[in-house]
């Protein structure tokens, strides 16, 4: 087992559900296929953005989620529409993957559409935030996605507040937060988790441990080999998942979701993965200053798409041929082509991109609006 994969360093990281009853065993074949499709979608979306950025079509920094898609897909797949999420900079696909369990084109979903997300990235008025803040800093009360700031981990107290408030209404909605491993060093992570643990709030803290916080390695930010060990300080379960294996992520996070929904309180799930490129696209070249090619190769060796496919073949959900039909795995953004992805994936993203390109920018005067809520204020 590679140092990046799941481990049982913490007692809770062993399968808490008993070996043959893992949550993923209860999924239907359609779900399995949907999960693979979502991995394709997340990967393709990222690739497309990388290309658009390279062509100079986008402003701002692109924080690629390449190689980390299993964390997003696996974590989100166990949620219900009423649940809240708070994605961070590297989680752009989360906005349209939320509530996409029954297909991202399902007419009943409340999660964001690819149009909305692309409008945001292209800085257009149709963005849910009317492009006032950039990239991942969108949200929606209706869709139950938290509008984050840049300040890392500052969504954790917010999530605790939502979880408290939901429970008080008698709802059993839960709140799932994403944070990078580096961000767990911040005081807000501690204050939020401490409060959540004191009140046994329905909150799941998913840690995307991609081994690097910008140019700072795990061991300079975290004193323990596993970030999940932070959970011990709050007396709550801390699970470790193989972040390359979407089903392991799903299993562990789903267990936490159920635990929270049943009223048992917050949990931490560390998903061990590896950042494929630089911290942001501006860092792609500099990243070689602090990461050896060998380390990067090793970190990218276990492509989440490949691992998912293997599992589906094993389970008999896909034939080997079906699994081999689309093969983006192992390829980097510059190598991969549209043909490596299912047509619906490509079409969906294209719809979003084209919508965004054709959309108007917000009017300059909007800049002065909505500083305060006022009667008769403009409605977006």
């Amino acid at each position, binding site marked *: 087992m590679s140092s990046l994969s799941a481990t049982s360093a913490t007692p809770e990281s062993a399968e808490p559900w008993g070996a043959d009853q893992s949550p993923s065993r209860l999924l239907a074949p359609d779900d399995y296929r949907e999960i693979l499709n979502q991995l394709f979608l997340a990967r393709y979306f990222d690739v497309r953005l990388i290309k658009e950025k390279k062509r100079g079509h986008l402003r701002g920094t692109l924080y690629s989620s390449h190689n980390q898609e299993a964390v997003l897909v696996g974590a989100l797949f166990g949620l219900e529409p009423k649940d809240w999420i708070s994605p961070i900079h590297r989680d752009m696909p989360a906005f349209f993957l939320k509530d996409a369990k029954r297909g991202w084109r399902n007419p009943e979903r409340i999660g964001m559409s690819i149009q909305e997300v692309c409008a945001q990235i292209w800085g257009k008025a149709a963005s*849910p*935030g*009317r492009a*006032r*803040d950039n990239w991942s*800093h969108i*949200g*929606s*009360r*209706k869709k139950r996605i*938290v*509008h984050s*700031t*840049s*300040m890392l981990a*500052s969504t*954790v*107290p*917010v*999530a*605790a*507040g*939502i*979880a*408290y*408030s*939901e429970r*008080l209404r008698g709802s059993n909605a839960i709140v799932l937060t994403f944070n990078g491993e580096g961000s767990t060093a911040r*005081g*807000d992570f501690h*204050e*939020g988790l*401490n*409060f959540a643990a*004191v009140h046994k709030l329905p909150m799941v803290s998913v840690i995307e441990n991609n081994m690097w916080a910008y140019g700072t390695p795990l061991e300079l930010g975290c004193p323990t080999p596993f970030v999940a060990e932070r959970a011990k300080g709050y007396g709550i379960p801390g699970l470790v998942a193989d972040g390359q294996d979407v089903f392991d992520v799903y299993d562990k996070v789903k267990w936490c979701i159920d635990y929270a929904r049943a009223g048992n309180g917050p949990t931490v799930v560390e998903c061990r993965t590896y950042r494929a490129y630089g911290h942001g696209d501006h860092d792609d070249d500099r990243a070689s200053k602090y990461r050896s090619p060998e380390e990067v190769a090793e970190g990218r060796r276990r492509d989440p798409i490949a691992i998912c496919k293997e599992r589906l073949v094993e389970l008999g959900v896909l034939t080997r041929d079906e699994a081999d039909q689309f093969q983006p795995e192992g390829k980097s953004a510059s190598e991969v082509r549209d043909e490596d992805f299912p047509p619906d994936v490509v079409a969906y993203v294209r719809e979003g991109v084209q919508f965004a390109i054709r959309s108007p920018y917000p009017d300059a005067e*909007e800049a002065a*609006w*909505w*500083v*305060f*809520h006022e009667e008769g*204020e*403009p*409605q*977006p």
Partner: protein
Amino acid sequence: MSIGTEPAVGAKRNYLQALNEALHEEMESNPDMICLGEDIGLLGGAFGVTEGLLARFGSDRVIDTPISESLIVGAAVGMALEGRTVMAEMQFMDFISCGFDQIVNNLATFHYRSAGEVNMPVVIRGPAGAYGGGALYHSQMNEAWFCHSPGLKVVCPSRPYDAKGLLKAALRDGNPVVFFEIKELYRRRELEEAVPGPDEIVPIGKAAVRREGRDVTLISYGQNIYHCLAAAEKLQSEGIDAEVLDLRTLVPLDEEAIWESLAKTNRVVVVNEAPRTCGFAGEVLARIAEKGFEYLDAPPARVTRLDTPVPWVKPLESYVLPDVEKVAAACRKVCRY
């Protein structure tokens, strides 16, 4: 809902009771309201502003939080996002620095970032101000930090009537309000007065003339209002007739009230116990210089704390703070110009 500006008929309340009453009434009428803070429940607050809330509304809605100011504000943001109105107490406004990021970067900007989707009816309130020997960390008036952070309303009442009416207004405003209470006034007997009824508020954004005068306008708020009033009395006998304007709200500022007074007096002294540089007194001077230049027969002046922390022992504390004599002296100088 009627808006009262004159004392209602009713029992007299001190500043603290007025605040307490406002919280009770708003908690009663708004079942979606939650109170958060350190020691606000079992204890009823370090000063007693939240007295009785826990017993009446239960621990679900009146939360004794851990010592975590950033959590308090952040959780308030989350609760507001979920649809709540939140009162978040800072045990002393000095500790607001520990929740600073959540206030200026999250709470203040939420409505803006969400393009109007989400309101943030969150009131951050707590005891502030010097003159009580509280030293560096129990004396601050740090309102200027928040006046400089777009998206926050900033309020500071100087009397029980306003304390109640403005706190109720703040809790109904739909915007984040940073609410500075003057702890030295909490129990001041001579301020007791009838306060607004359950359905009344004092509107945010309106100043009040506390004393009419023709020769010079004293602009202030909070505790310094009483230094201004006392200085005005003193000056009266010297033949200087001072008007005292209580801003009550700093953001948004009632500029009209300033122009009205300046049109009459043509001279102005702004008084504020916060440090001088980049304090709110400077902002008032700047606006007057920009837009009220024509009214002025003399340079505008400000009386503020020196640019020092607030030291502990009395003679040192007094040395750095505005007082009646410093205010009177500034008026004399402005009037002699």
